[in-house]
């Protein structure tokens, strides 16, 4: 069974929600739609207080090359445009939308599916761009930019990322089971952009055998290969997935297209299908609501902008033992300070967990056991990076490959001294950035 070469861990899978079908969550009375749900420059808000919008109407326009459109997720009235808490932990410009309850689509959107084969390459990418599609696995890189690599880079491998290696999360798993036709159609659209040469793969971890079966039945007649991968974290990281499937290694400073690869998330593929064939902008996504402390764990389809507090009410309220709520998976997600943050295009899960032991788990000194080096998928020495970060030697730390760290959290997971290795690395990254900004200013 295929997997990536260097490092990796296997935390308890805890996929409690893998057999629960996706439920449609009703649109709440008020939505908070942030203008930066993607990597790059935030979108420019186009609406004012009091404007009436229809579902799918453009409310934030992409501002610059790496940016993405934002659409209204329901019909209603704009209540305000102001900075509000964002799941990233910072504050972001947000459009507050009061729903009118009709959930009415704007004209010409969400139509009956049309055949995409008649469309030109530019039309397809244009539709993806207009729909505001971004990478839905977590990073949120604008998909239209990813789909138009520089002309000198030849893409020969298109990979769909169904690894979903984070514990708890089952959103992609359910999507692969319930919308396998759309997933494959979306992949075909993406692969068609790169001509006949491009070979399409879907990488799925072996703990999702039902999804592998469902997909391969429909994919093999179309020449798409579904690859069963050994369950190992972080298989869903772009570089690791490419290594697992093609054996190619993305070196420092390289991007996947340098090695002829393109990776897209399962959710993104479905969004591409809907945008191209049904002219439907990205206004909802699948979210796994799980953790031991939520009343009823669920997979839900929530509109973008639904607040976590509404979702927690829909899923039977958190139990009294909850003391941490995480947006994303347990390995790379962010702990939140308020439930007023909204679902964005990149929110794959919301976890309610009990971390009461956390106070005793304070950092101790490194015992040089080398476990972090063993598991680092990027081949770094996390203990050394953390030590140098603690000494604030920000020249040295860049030589040690700081920029190569993907912050997957494997090192922190295995550290017997409970060192906050990834947190130290993030800290160093923040200070290195700050120093560069001051230098250039």
């Amino acid at each position, binding site marked *: 069974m295929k997997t990536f070469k260097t490092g990796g861990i296997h935390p308890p899978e805890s996929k409690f929600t893998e057999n629960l079908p996706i439920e449609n969550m009703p649109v709440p009375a008020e939505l908070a739609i942030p203008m930066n749900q993607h990597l790059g420059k935030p979108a420019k808000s186009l609406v004012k207080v009091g404007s009436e919008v229809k579902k799918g109407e453009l409310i934030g326009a992409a501002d610059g090359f790496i940016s993405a459109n934002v659409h209204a997720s329901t019909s209603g009235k704009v209540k305000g445009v102001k900075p509000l808490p964002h799941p990233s*932990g*910072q504050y972001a410009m947000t459009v507050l939308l009061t729903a009118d309850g009709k959930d009415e689509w704007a004209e010409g959107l969400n139509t009956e599916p049309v055949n995409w084969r008649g469309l030109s390459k530019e039309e397809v990418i244009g539709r993806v761009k207009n729909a505001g599609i971004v990478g839905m696995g977590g990073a949120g890189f604008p998909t239209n930019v990813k789909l138009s690599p520089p002309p000198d880079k030849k893409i020969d491998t298109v990979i769909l990322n169904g690894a979903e290696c984070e514990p708890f999360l089952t959103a992609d798993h359910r999507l692969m089971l319930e919308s396998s036709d759309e997933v494959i159609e979306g992949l075909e659209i993406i692969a068609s952009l790169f001509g006949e040469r491009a070979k399409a793969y879907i990488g799925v971890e072996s703990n999702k055998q039902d999804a592998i079966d469902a997909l391969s039945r429909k994919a093999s007649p179309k020449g798409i290969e579904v690859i069963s991968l050994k369950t190992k974290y972080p298989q869903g990281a772009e570089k690791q997935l490419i290594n697992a499937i093609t054996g190619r290694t993305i070196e420092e400073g390289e991007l996947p297209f340098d090695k002829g690869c393109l990776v897209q998330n399962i959710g993104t593929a479905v969004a591409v299908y809907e945008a191209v064939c049904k002219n439907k902008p990205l206004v909802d996504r699948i979210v796994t609501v799980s953790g031991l402390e939520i009343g009823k764990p669920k997979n839900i389809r929530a509109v973008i902008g639904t607040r976590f507090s509404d979702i927690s009410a829909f899923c039977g309220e958190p139990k009294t033992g909850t003391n941490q709520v995480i947006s994303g998976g347990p390995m790379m997600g962010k702990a939140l300070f*308020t439930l007023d943050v909204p679902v964005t295009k990149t929110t794959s899960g919301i976890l309610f967990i009990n971390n009461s032991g*956390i106070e005793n788990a304070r*950092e101790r000194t490194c015992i040089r056991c080398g476990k972090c080096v063993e598991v680092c998928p990027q081949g770094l020495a996390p203990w050394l990076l953390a030590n140098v970060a603690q000494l604030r030697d920000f020249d040295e730390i860049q030589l040690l490959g700081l920029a190569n760290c993907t912050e997957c959290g494997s090192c922190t997971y295995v550290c017997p001294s409970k060192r906050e290795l990834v*947190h130290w690395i*993030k800290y160093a990254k923040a200070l290195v950035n700050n120093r560069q900004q*001051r230098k250039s200013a």
Partner: protein
Amino acid sequence: MISEAFIPAVASLGSVALVLGLIIFYVSKKFHVEEDPTVLIVNDILPGVNCGACGYPSCGQFAEVLVETRDSSMSCPVGGPDLAEKLGSTLGITMAEPKPITAVLLCQGNNDNARETAQYFGIQDCWAATQTYVGPKQCKYSCIGLGSCIAFCDFGAMRLENGLVVIDKELCTGCGACVPACPTGVLVMQEKKAERYFIACNSHDKGAATKKACDAGCIACQKCVKVCDDDAIVIDNFLARIDQEKCTACGKCIEVCPTKVNCILLERDLGEVKQKKAS
């Protein structure tokens, strides 16, 4: 009786030492660098902490440039007027008197005044805390209170007290090393004065939001602006600021400030924070 075996050992080591000594002597003569003795004297007078407040990377560099240019406008903020006088008499020029400055914390959001949003268990450092979210305190402009700046202070003038950084005005030399060390920009440099009024708040939130987050926040009520006879107070983006050039330290503003804990502070030149509350 000296053993016979001693002689070759002494002779061999002695000759090696002699040869090396001669090489050192030759090199020191050959590569001798003429150094201005005044530079050494000036360097000795300087504080020698290499804090960089003068704009030069080290005290030695400052001394070299000063001796070379004899520029009377150059100043060492750490040494203050005493040092300026000493430097002047050594070099035979009249040095400009440096204005004593000090670091000021524009925040009173200590554990009593400010409200927290969440408990933070991560790395005890402000920059690390801002990587998880805006910081444990509700106000994103506040002093995070984990003391990243303290490590950058060469003079031991900073300490943590009740969730806030406290600056000892007597020890603070105004080198400014702490300012870039703060992720929220709540530390600024201000001129030391006999009586100095300033708004000890950094929040650009609207009044209601500020009040919700902190008892000592400036709510931009305009009261101090109206009462000020010198037009020294302006409100910019929901935060009042006192222009230290125009302020005559009359103290009227502090009387009218309506916030629960006065957001306007009076500091007397050296240390001692005093608060007057309208009776």
